[in-house]
């Protein structure tokens, strides 16, 4: 479903080029649950950014269902991105929209009817426990609430793949469990999940495939991996 072939990403700013990813290759099959682990700066976020076509790789290609993601024309890019649901590390909620509007935005973009929006959004908000916060703006939410709002937005349109970059970074253990249970549930329903995290407990409890990155290189790729750095 997703194939990374010899992907290298070098950021050129300042005097010294920074190699974020170096010759990374792997494949993700449909309905797989893959965790990507590594220290801060190991290249997890860069990897997800490249998959989302937010960044172009310096070398190598990324295929999604046989299509080179970085050769999709700008006007076709939105359609590709609607196949994915992304939870960003910095949430990226729209500050001028309420929680409800942030979640419904993608449905509006996709041209869903008002009735569908009225029906689906409250359900998802209930799942992530934000029913009471539907009319609040992001700046009125706590870090954990924002993270859950971001997750709700990534789920709402039932994408084929969910990319989650540190979705539990700001959550207490109780909510962390909730989010992971939620991701597991979505995965059981047939969604491919790519989870980037450095939470040891989560990885060890999941018992799923783990790709470990260090300084931009894949040092381990195990079917039933554990958190080892």
């Amino acid at each position, binding site marked *: 479903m997703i194939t990374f072939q010899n992907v290298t990403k070098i950021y050129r700013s300042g005097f010294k080029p920074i190699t974020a990813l170096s010759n990374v290759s792997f494949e993700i099959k449909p309905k797989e649950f893959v965790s990507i682990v590594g220290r801060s700066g190991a290249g997890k976020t860069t990897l997800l950014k490249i998959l989302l076509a937010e960044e172009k790789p310096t070398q190598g290609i990324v295929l999604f269902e046989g299509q080179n993601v970085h050769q999709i024309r700008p*006007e076709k890019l*939105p*359609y590709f991105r*609607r196949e994915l649901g992304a939870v960003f590390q910095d949430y*990226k909620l729209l500050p001028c929209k309420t929680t409800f509007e942030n979640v419904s935005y*993608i449905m*509006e973009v996709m041209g869903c009817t008002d009735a569908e929006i009225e029906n689906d959004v409250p359900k998802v908000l209930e799942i992530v426990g934000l029913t009471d916060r539907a009319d609040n703006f992001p700046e009125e939410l706590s870090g954990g609430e924002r993270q859950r709002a971001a997750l709700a*937005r990534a789920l709402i349109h039932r994408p084929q793949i969910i990319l989650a970059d540190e979705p539990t970074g700001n959550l207490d253990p109780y909510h962390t469990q909730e989010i992971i249970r939620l991701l597991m549930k979505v995965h059981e329903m047939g969604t491919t999940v790519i989870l980037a995290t450095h939470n040891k407990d989560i990885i060890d409890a999941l018992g799923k495939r783990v790709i470990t990155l260090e300084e931009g290189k894949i040092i381990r790729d195990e079917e039933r991996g554990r958190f080892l750095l």
Partner: protein
Amino acid sequence: MLTSFRRIIQSGWLSFRRQGGLSLATIFIMTMTIACVSSLFFLQQTSQFLVSSLQEKVDMSVYFTEASLENEILGIKNEIASLPEVKSIDYVSREEALDKFTQRHQDDEVIMESLSEIGVNPLLASLNVRAWEASQYESIVSFLNSASFSPLIDKIDYSQKKPAIERFSSITSTINWVGIILSVIFAAVAVLVAFNTVRLAIYNSKEEIETMRLVGASNWFIRGPFLVQGVVVGVFATLITLLLFVVTLLFLSPKFEILAPGLNLFSFFVGNFFLILLIQLAAGVGLGVLSSWIAIRRYLRV
């Protein structure tokens, strides 16, 4: 399609309301821009009015010798009237000239006495010539001097008026040039200020725009609400400017009329209301939409 359109408009209006302070600041700048552009329009009208009313006052008289006959002069009149530079020409006979003269000086005893002392009519018949523009008198004079009937001409008072006419002519063209240059500079400054205000307002939403791209919104769905905001700002700014002008002109118009009789800016405003509204709307909405369009382009590349 229709749903998307409605959502774009709704979303634009919502952002306009929620970013109240920013919207207000943009409206303020836009109002100043539109006011500036429309003042230029009024300034140009005023200077045109002044120039043409001064031009009306300039003329030239051609006096004929006592020996010339009336039908000879009338023949010459037709000949001069056929020149392209001539706007109008009037014949003043010796008797008419005397009538006018006595009328003007009837209270001045010394002049009236000396006139009756002479016994005969000392005034000459003349043709009063008006050109379209002050600069054209020179060529009319040279035509008169080289014409076959030039011996009949006693004098042309152009040479006495010449310095005044020439100065006036140069002032007129200076006013026009300064007006054009100032208009261009003012308009450019106003447009740049408005453009940069919108740019800053959109820079503020830079990350928002990039996020919208990342979650899969099409460019039109992202751009639309900003353009709607541009339109709303433009319309509000136009309305405020119109109101400002109505009030200002209502109070200032009488004072202007003292300075330049016959110039009523308020009635000019009312008479050209739709033209002015169109100019202001075009300036306000056009600027708002165009600046948004240009400013947003770079953030859509994600």
